[in-house]
Every structure is written in C-alpha cells, then in structure tokens.
C-alpha cells in the first residue's frame, strides 16, 4: 500500500503536461485506507483534462469518502507518453490522489460516457495489472465496474467488466460497498452473485447469451440473477447536494468552472436523445439549494464562472430570476468590486430562451451561446420530436443578437430518420436566416453550424433505425458545404462520419463485439475519441476478422419482433411505448412534455413509484414550449390518444 510517487516523479520530467498526474486539487478528500474498508478507484477512461470535470465521478467520490466503510480515489487514462514510460518501468495505473497502484484497490470503476472510450477501458484494466477478460480474473484480482450512459447497452463490454450499475449511482454505491464487505470472504463468485441481486446492478457473467443466425437469446445462468435489471433512480435531487466540494484542478481542464446540476432528467421527449430517455423523470433541485451551492461553491473555489447544468437548463423553474441573482446587482458588478459572475447554460432550448434571459446572461462576461435545433425543417423536427418552430428559433437567436452576442452556434444532426436532401439544405437556410436577423442588431453577425452524424441509441425510440452509411453522411455534408460555399458569415463544422460509424457499431453492439474491441485495443487503438488517434480501419479490419458485418450492426433497420441486445436491461421505458413513439416519429407526429401535461405512461415513473419534482406547474415563459406552431399539429397525449391542435 505504498505510494508510487518516488518512482513516478522522475518520469514526470519527461512527459507532456505533467501537472495532470500530481493530484492535489482543491477539494480532493480521499479517506484513509484501512482494514475492512472497501477501496474504490474511480476512473475516467480518457485524459485528465477531459475526465476531471466529470460530475458523476466527483459525486460518487465524495459519497464514498464520507462513508466509514469506504475509500475512493481517482484515476485517469495516462497519455501515451506516460503510458509508454509506465510500461517500460513496469509501473501500473495509479491514483492521482495518493499515487497508489490500482492493484491496491478492491474495485476499479469506470464512467462510460462515450462508446469511443471502450478500448481505453481495456487498456486501463490491463495497465492496472488485471486480466482484461473478466472470466480470466482470479480471487484477489480487481473487480471491474462501469456505469454512466453507455451502461444502458453494456453488452459490447460484457466480457471485460464484472458488474455494471444502471442509472443514478448515489444510492447504489453504498449498497455495493456493503455487499462487498459482507461477502468478500466468500470469494469472487459469491460477491458477484450478491451484487447481481442488488437493484440496478448487472453482472454479465450471470447471463447466458446465445446467437442463432440473426436472433439472440438471453437467459439468467445464476439463480440470484433477475430476468430484467432495472435502473436506479434517486427520487429527490435535493437529498443529494453533491458535489459539495467540487474539485478545482491545478492545471487547465475542459469546463474549468463551477458546475451546479439544477435538475436531472428531461421529458421534452427528443427521440434521438438517449440522455433524455434514460434519466426520466425530471427531478429539479430546490431553488434555495441551488443558490446555496452556487454561493458556497464560488466562495470556496475562487471560480468566476458557474454553469447551471442539466439537459435543458432554460426549463428550470424560475431560471430568469436565478440567473439574475447569481449575476448580481444591476450595476453589473459583483461583490467587492469584482466583475460579475459569468453564468453559462450549456444546454438551451430555444423555445424557453427569452429576451429576459439573454439580458441577464449578457450582463456578465459573454460565453458562447449554443442552440440545438437538431434538424433543418419543421417536418423533421416533428419526426425527432424537437418541437421548436422556426419562429421559436428566430426569436431566440434575435434575442441573443439584440443583447449583443455577435456569434451564435447552432447544432444539428444529419442522418436522422426520414431525412431528405431538402431537410439537410434547410440547415443552410436556417443559418442564413439567423445571420440576417443578427445583422439587424450587430455588425459582423455570424453563425457557426456544427453538424454531427446521428447515431441511434439503445433505450430510445430510434433504437430500431438503421443509421446512414459513411458515404451517405459524406454526401449530405458535401451538399451542405456546397450550399454554404462563399457564405463567409456561416461557418460549418462537422463530426467525422467514420467516427459516427464506429460509435454506431458499439452503441447497439452485442456481446460478439467484445472481440472486436479487444482486437482494436491489441492493435494499439486507444484514445479513439481523439481525431489524431482515431483509426476507422482498425475497427473495420477487426469486424472482418471476427466475421461480423458492419451492415448488420450499424446500417440495418431492426424489426419489432427482434430481441435487442439490451432488452434484459430496463431504463424504465416500456418497449411498446418506445415502439409506438417510433411509429409516431415515422408519421411525423409530435409528443408533448409530460412535465406540464398529463402522463402518457412511458414507464419511467409509473414503473418505479416516483414522479416529477418540478417547482413550477407551468412551462417557463416564452416560445411555443414544445407545442410547435400553427398550423395545428397532431400531438399524442396519453397512450395512443390523438388530439389535434393542442396549444
């Protein structure tokens, strides 16, 4: 249980950005290790700069360290230069808190926020000194755990991870700690059996998965394993005011600011959005608690920027007043003559973005404003259920320009179901219209259009959709680029279609994909999230070697009868609700937000006896609030009931 620091320190003189390995962040609070304690190494499988701000890991880090029976430290993927030195010197993955070897911990737990980090997960298990395949691990080896959004289809990593946690981890980590402490004397099989019996914990080894041609069957192998594993949901965010001591890094990281989560869950019902589907229902943090967390957080950290995080922060009850309070008194100055605190709202719905909110935001330092219309036409926005009208978008963009912003970012997806070239070109039209509006208010108004390729995600209505091929995405992007050529006020950026393909393979992959991930890792394919390291050919070659077809995994439409690889795992959403929503999507029929309208029983609340926690019973002011615009659109309320023209 010794610190590896004396061995690591000389290596740090030889690597880039060594500050990411030293720990010592303000707020770091590892509890002392001790006999009987369960030791967790919480790992973000990407670089420190990307991983440190992850709020999920920070929350669990604090909760575990507050427990008398647990200790938690943090690790991040060492960059390639350090990894090479570690392997040369025979040194393992280490925690940045006390620089202990990963092998000194009981659990190595990963946060999975993107499919492209899967090969890093394998690399880190290996660097930690454990066998990469779960089946090869023996008594005394690390238990490998994973959670986060990608855990809702864990099958591609099933061969490598001992257990997954589905949904909110706040309560589950405590129960897992207790089960581990109670059963570890009984050995690995007993421990995993006990974990698999906990709500929200999925132990892949406890299930037999077999394939016969195109069909797949799943059956529990262990008596204690449930037929279906259900996600965990904390009923009240107010009970969990974490992180209480957000980590303040000593070196620059992404999102380097105070982050306060104002609500979890989203019921806007965007059909492409896995985050919105799997985190239902909406649970707002009480306004008073939000204010306290901001006030104390700013004082403690010295940050001058706070991000109010959620999936759609403009929907938070009383958002305008909250922002006004944080920014400070109307003379534009915060306390003691300091400049006003900058508030950033990372995800903004245009139909809830008002001139008032724009005015409050601009009083402090201006951060970028990003709106996500997602699709270029009203028809396609109905398909994806992003029910914002062109008028909503124009009003929001105009509000921004009128309050002095010069550049607005618009985010779109291409490759959406039913998309036509007209829809794609609609993106260019919208962007140009925004610039036109901007010119009324500011000189040099410009728009940045970011285009991502759509990847259908498990546990969403689009889980049955065959994604666009790389060639098709390229064709659409070229169409858009051609249309915008010569237009200097619209800047176009896009995500690499090949990366979209690989995300798609892993997103809806099954257990057979594990061999592909291992193959890519063994051939050096780590840090695939980084464009300079991403290598599509590694993936395509591995697919071919394993006899798996890209067509089958990514491009094929699934049928209603087909067993999906994640059908034995539930995010609460009834499969028939998702199928109906998929059919409605194809009919370009929208679905209202159940936070402010009657429940249509998707299953997320009704199945678990919980409900929305929303301070305001009515939508925030402004925009058309997800109801679209005239002409009236059919909006489905309740299971299958169609009401025309609800507004």
């Amino acid at each position: 249980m010794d610190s590896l620091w004396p061995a690591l320190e000389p290596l740090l003189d030889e690597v880039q950005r060594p500050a990411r390995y030293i720990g010592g962040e303000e707020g770091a609070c590892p509890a002392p290790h001790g006999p009987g304690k369960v030791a967790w190494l919480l790992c973000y499988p990407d670089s420190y700069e990307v991983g440190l701000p992850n709020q999920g890991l920070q929350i669990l880090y604090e909760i575990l360290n507050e427990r008398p029976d647990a200790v938690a430290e943090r690790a991040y993927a060492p960059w390639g230069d350090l990894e090479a030195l570690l392997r040369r010197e025979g040194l393992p993955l280490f925690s940045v808190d006390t620089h202990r070897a990963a092998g000194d911990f009981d659990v190595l737990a990963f946060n999975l926020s993107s499919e492209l980090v899967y090969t890093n997960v394998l690399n880190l298990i290996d660097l930690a000194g454990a066998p990469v395949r779960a089946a090869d691990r023996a008594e005394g080896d690390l238990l490998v755990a994973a959670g986060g959004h990608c855990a809702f289809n864990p099958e591609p990593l099933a061969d490598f991870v001992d257990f997954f946690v589905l949904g909110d981890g706040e309560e589950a980590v405590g129960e897992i700690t207790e089960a581990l402490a109670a059963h570890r004397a009984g050995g690995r099989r007993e421990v995993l059996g006990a974990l698999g019996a906990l709500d929200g914990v999925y132990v892949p080894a406890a299930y037999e998965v077999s394939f016969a041609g195109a069909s797949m069957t799943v059956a529990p192998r262990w008596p204690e394993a449930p037929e279906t594993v259900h996600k965990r949901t904390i009923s009240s965010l107010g009970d969990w005011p974490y992180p209480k001591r957000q980590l303040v890094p000593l070196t620059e990281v992404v999102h380097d600011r105070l982050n306060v989560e104002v609500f979890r869950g989203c019921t806007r019902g965007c059909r492409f959005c896995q985050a919105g589907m799997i985190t239902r229902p909406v649970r707002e943090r009480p306004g008073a608690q939000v204010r306290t967390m901001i006030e104390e957080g700013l004082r403690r950290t010295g940050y001058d920027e706070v991000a109010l995080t959620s999936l759609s922060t403009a929907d938070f009850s009383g958002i305008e007043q909250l922002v006004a309070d944080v920014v400070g008194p109307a003379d534009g100055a915060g306390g003691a003559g300091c400049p006003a605190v900058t508030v950033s709202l990372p995800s903004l719905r245009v139909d809830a973005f008002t001139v008032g909110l724009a005015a409050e935001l601009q009083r402090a330092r201006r951060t970028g404003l990003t709106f996500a219309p997602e699709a270029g036409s009203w028809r396609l926005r109905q398909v994806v259920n992003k029910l914002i009208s062109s008028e909503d978008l124009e009003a929001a963009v105009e509000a921004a320009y009128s309050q002095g912003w010069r550049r607005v970012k618009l985010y779109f997806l291409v490759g959406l179901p039913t998309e036509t070239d007209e829809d794609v070109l609609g993106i260019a039209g919208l962007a140009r219209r925004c610039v036109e509006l901007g010119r009324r208010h500011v000189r040099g108004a410009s728009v940045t259009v970011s285009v991502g390729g759509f990847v259908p995600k498990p546990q969403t209505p689009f889980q049955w959709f065959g994604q666009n091929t790389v060639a098709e995405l390229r064709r659409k992007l070229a169409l858009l680029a051609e249309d915008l050529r010569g237009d200097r006020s619209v800047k176009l950026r896009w995500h690499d279609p090949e990366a979209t393909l690989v995300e798609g393979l892993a997103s809806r992959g099954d257990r057979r994909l594990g061999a592909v991930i291992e193959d890519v890792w063994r051939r050096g394919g780590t840090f695939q999230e980084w464009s300079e390291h991403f290598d599509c050919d590694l993936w395509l070659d591995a697919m071919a070697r394993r006899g798996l077809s890209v067509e089958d995994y990514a491009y094929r439409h699934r049928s209603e009868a087909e067993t999906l690889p994640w059908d034995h795992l539930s995010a609460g959403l009834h499969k028939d609700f998702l199928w109906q929503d998929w059919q409605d999507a194809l009919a370009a029929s929208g679905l209202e937000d159940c936070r402010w309208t009657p429940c249509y029983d998707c299953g997320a609340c009704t199945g678990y006896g919980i409900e929305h926690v929303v301070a305001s019973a009515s939508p925030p002011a402004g925009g058309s609030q997800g109801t679209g615009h005239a002409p009236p659109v059919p909006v489905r309320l309740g299971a299958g009931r169609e009401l025309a023209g609800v507004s």
Partner: protein
Amino acid sequence: MRVRLCWTKQGRIRFCGHRDSARIWERAVRRADLPVSYTQGYTPRAKIAFGLALAVGQESVAEYLDVDLRLSQEEAAGLAADLPERLSAVLPEGMAVSGARPLKPGAASLQEAVTSCTWEFALGPADRGLASDWVGRVQSAESLPLERERKGRRTVSDVRTAVGGLRLADSRSGSVLVAELGTKPRAVRPAEFLRLTVPPLAAGRIRRLHQWIMRDGERYEPLAPPAGVLAPTGGAPAAAGCRAVPAAQPEVCAE
C-alpha cells in the same frame, strides 16, 4: 495601489506551468477576497503582473508578482503585512507567499527590472567530480557561445558576461551547483546554461533561489531594494522582505 509579492513554488506543484500558476493566482485572490482591480471590457481579468516565467518542473523560492489593489497607499501598506498568511492559506500545497510590500507608483515592472537570477542545480552523489571539471571549463572559457532559435532563425551569442557566481556546495543527497544567470538582453535559461560547454552537465532538480535587480551599481532583490522603488511603509515590518534564502545554504536546497 500596486503590491509586490514574493512567493514560492516547491514540491509537486513544480509540474504546473506558468499559465497554470496564473490561473491558480486568479482564483486565490478571489478566495482571499482581496480588493483587486480588474481590466475593463468583455473579459475582465484581475490585474496581476507576473515576473519571469518559471519552466515546468522547476522549483523556486523567489517568484514575484505585482497585483493592483483598489486601496490607498496607506491601506495597502496595512494589508501587506497580512498578505503572506492570508494568501498562503488559499494557495495549494507547495505554493506560499513569503513577503509583500506596496510599490511606489511608476516602479518598473518585474520583467523590466530583473537583471539576473540565481539558480541551483541538484547533482547526484557521484557527480561532484564531473561537475567540478565542468565548472572549471566554464569559468576558464573566454567566450561562451550559445546557439538559440528565435522565430525560426538561429542566432549565436556570447553569454560569457551573463554567467557568473558559479559555486559547488554539498547537499544532503549529493551536491548542488549554484550559478547566477543574466536576463538581459535575453535571459540565459537554466537548460541553456547546462549545455554551454560540451559535454553538457547533467543535473536533477532546478530551483530558482533569487532574482536580482542591478541598478546604479547596486544589486538588490525585488522586495528588498534601497529607497526609491518600494513605497514607504513607515517602519517596514519584519515580514516585508522576502524570507532570505542564502545562496550558499545547502540544506534548504535539496531533499
């Protein structure tokens, strides 16, 4: 009112670069609730002027910075005595403030004023003999040409007059070489110094011990100058000067 601080950077925090340190300082002055002046405009920044950058991995017991406070000269003088404690409490481990004094209006910036730095280079236990030969060669050289690249162009300049005060001393884990390197017109960096003669000298941890201002034939440290630069404090408190680290005191120099 501008206040000059002397601070230290030792241990793990030495792996943070100049930009990282600047961000740590910006947060520290807010956490300490100092009445700092801010720049105007869209992105107001605390008015903090840093001196000569310290490279990643190097330690220092003699870093300086100037911070503008919205205080009168008298108020600033009163506050200065509290600053070492108040700021050290909110700085990360390894960083601490060792002295603070108000500056006279119009005093030259650190970048302009500092003319040389004293550096300490840790040597392994077995390197003493090699180092002593190396020092002899540097001292007896008539010229010390240093090849550097600037904006893609190679230049060679003789830095003989910018190198002095070479001295070897014992330390707990071996020995140390101490040298004073000039910063004008262009600073001789520690790494450049080590390759002034062939073969280059291999050294371990590098630490800045002093920064010096040479003016009118007198040499002094940025916090302990003769009259004329610092604002009068009315009986300088003992904490006013940078806690002296005698250059030849090896026990503070190595671990």
